[in-house]
């Protein structure tokens, strides 16, 4: 099992627009293909519990993951597979957690999107929306105490902005002037609920001023824009400008989870520019700019397919957790664990 995040170094060194865009596209593609694999496995009854895809949100997610460096903090949410990969999460972490392999970082104790490596800056989410934002704040406060550098980014949906947790944490970050990058993917729906039932401001970006933080709006279907705006916001935070709120507009191109056929999505939205598939848009740009041709992209696709199949094949042979070897110990202070009968 890889003990550290793998690909941060590579990512951090990318510099030219071509290199950066190409690299970003590759992570998007990788994420998309891995998501699709999870969906297939889900339909085949191979995965317990839910499967949640980032389809349509890869440009945003990848831009977050790529803008971060080793030593930064990333607390992804359910649709951030691509961003995780770009940040350096090993593909095996993802596959193992979906299968509940005892070799994965969550050891079968938690599953699917609830994975991470806190000590390496990749924070595993709990389900309660908004709950991870203050955790990132605290990690950044710790760095300030410790005189260590680093910024922290986290993602949430527009539905999550209605939680008290979101509000308290963004306000806390503003008061403490923390280098927090809070990325809201406004994908128009929270499960089945349209934005009109979620908030009443014209645009979520209008919230920035009320918190006293920088606000950035971006077309979430456009990778170039995402890299620029999100990358810029991360730099601002790094340079001491305090919290950065980013609102990316796009459309969820899948069900809430793979159990959901998303029949409720307004067809007009699907046809609008919001409904564009960021991966296709990026692929077209890539080809148009002559940074890659369809042959090369096919080779990448094959490369990723192979990696994915290898990982899945490997993990499917791995043992699930053994309840008899499990110590059933919820605290680390072994001497304080209750071992009584009723307990």
């Amino acid at each position, binding site marked *: 099992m890889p003990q550290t995040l793998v690909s941060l170094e590579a990512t951090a060194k990318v510099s030219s627009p071509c290199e950066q865009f190409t690299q970003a596209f590759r992570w998007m593609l990788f994420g998309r293909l891995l998501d699709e694999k999870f969906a297939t496995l889900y339909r085949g009854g191979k*995965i*317990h*519990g*839910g499967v949640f895809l980032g389809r349509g949100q890869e440009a945003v997610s990848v831009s977050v993951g790529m803008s971060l460096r080793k030593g930064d903090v990333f607390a992804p949410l359910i649709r951030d597979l691509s961003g995780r990969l770009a940040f350096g999460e090993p593909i095996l972490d993802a596959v193992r957690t979906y299968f*509940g392999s005892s070799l994965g970082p*969550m050891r*079968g*104790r*938690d*599953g*699917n999107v*609830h994975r991470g490596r806190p000590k390496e800056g990749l924070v595993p989410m*709990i*389900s*309660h*929306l908004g709950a991870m934002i203050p955790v990132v704040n605290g990690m950044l406060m710790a760095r300030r105490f410790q005189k260590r550098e680093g910024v922290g980014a986290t993602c949430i949906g527009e*539905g*999550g902005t*209605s*939680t*008290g*947790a979101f509000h308290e944490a963004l306000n806390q970050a503003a008061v403490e002037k923390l280098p927090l990058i809070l990325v809201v993917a406004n994908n128009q729906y*929270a*499960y*089945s*609920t349209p934005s009109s*039932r*979620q*908030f009443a401001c014209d645009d979520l970006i209008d919230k920035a001023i009320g918190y006293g933080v920088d606000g950035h709006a971006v077309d979430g279907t456009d990778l170039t824009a995402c890299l620029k705006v999100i990358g810029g916001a991360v730099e601002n935070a790094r340079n001491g400008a305090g919290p950065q709120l980013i609102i990316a507009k796009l459309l969820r191109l899948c069900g809430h989870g793979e159990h959901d056929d998303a029949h*409720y999505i307004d067809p007009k939205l699907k046809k609008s520019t919001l409904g564009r598939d960021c991966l296709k848009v990026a692929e077209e740009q890539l080809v148009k700019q002559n940074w890659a041709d369809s042959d090369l992209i096919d080779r990448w696709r094959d490369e990723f397919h192979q990696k994915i199949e290898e990982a899945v094949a490997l993990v499917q042979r791995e043992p*699930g*957790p*053994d*309840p*008899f070897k*499990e110590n*059933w*110990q*919820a605290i680390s202070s072994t001497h304080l664990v*209750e071992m009584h009968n*009723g*307990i």
Partner: protein
Amino acid sequence: MSITYLEAIREAQAKALADDPRVFIYGQDVGSFGGAFKATKNLAQEFPGRVIDAPISEDAMIGSAVGAAIEGMRPIIEIQFADFSTVGLNQIINNAASLFWRTNVSCPITIRLPSGGTSGSGPFHSQNMEALYAHYPGLIVMTPGTVEDAYSMLLEAVAIDDPVIFCEHKYLYYHLKAEKLPSEAMPVGKARIARPGRDLTIVTYSAMLHEALAVAEELATEGTEIEVVDLRSVKPLDTDTVIASVARTGKLLCVGETFPFGGVTAEVIARVATEAFDLLDVAPQRLNAKDTPVPFHPNLWAAHRPTARSIMSAVRNLLQN
């Protein structure tokens, strides 16, 4: 025709909406989508304007239910998963639960909590919250374990003038079926002898009822008769029925699905021990989940909560005494 536990919940809500103009439903995705579990399927269409999608704001959802109740409405709040009620807990235990006592104005709200473990749901989509809510004065906590109770108790929950925490078990949603909906029901606050027996009493509720019944059935083939008491509501808790059963059997096992410290099984054992000590032939026992979060992987999950198998072994131990 057959009807599931989940359908019974839908039907109860349909009837409540049809019978009482004061009833409305408020929760995430409960409207035209029909709810994450489809417990409100078609209700928004059948009762326009009365089944309302909420933002992801559990505190505001429940707070507004308290306000609506003050003004004479009878809101039903659906929390998408019981686990998420933690962020609405303050409104439940401090606002809703204290209103009547402080002001003499009752607070008829029903909070539906899709509860309990299902395979692969993990630590944050599997919790049972009855211990937290039963601890606080001012609340009624229902834990139906049958299709019939899911239906009739939900109707009663809406009719009762006090805040009701309605813990409906997700594992039972599709697994449990009945021939038809009941036209009569036992009153809330009364436990049911789900299976009579003379050798040992198992007190339980909700999904664990069926694990207990499976054990009783198996042991019956060996000639051992287990009495299974279904609490139905954990607050009020029908101590009389429990004690009457212990009086018959002399042996008590209490089974709950959730974390071991405090909570319902401790309360049951404590009541029997303090009020009916002399009726016990041997030490009472309890069986709960393990003292860790609810695990994701099916292997771990099956070992975390009590099952027919672990109940059977506890019963055999008790019988040997």
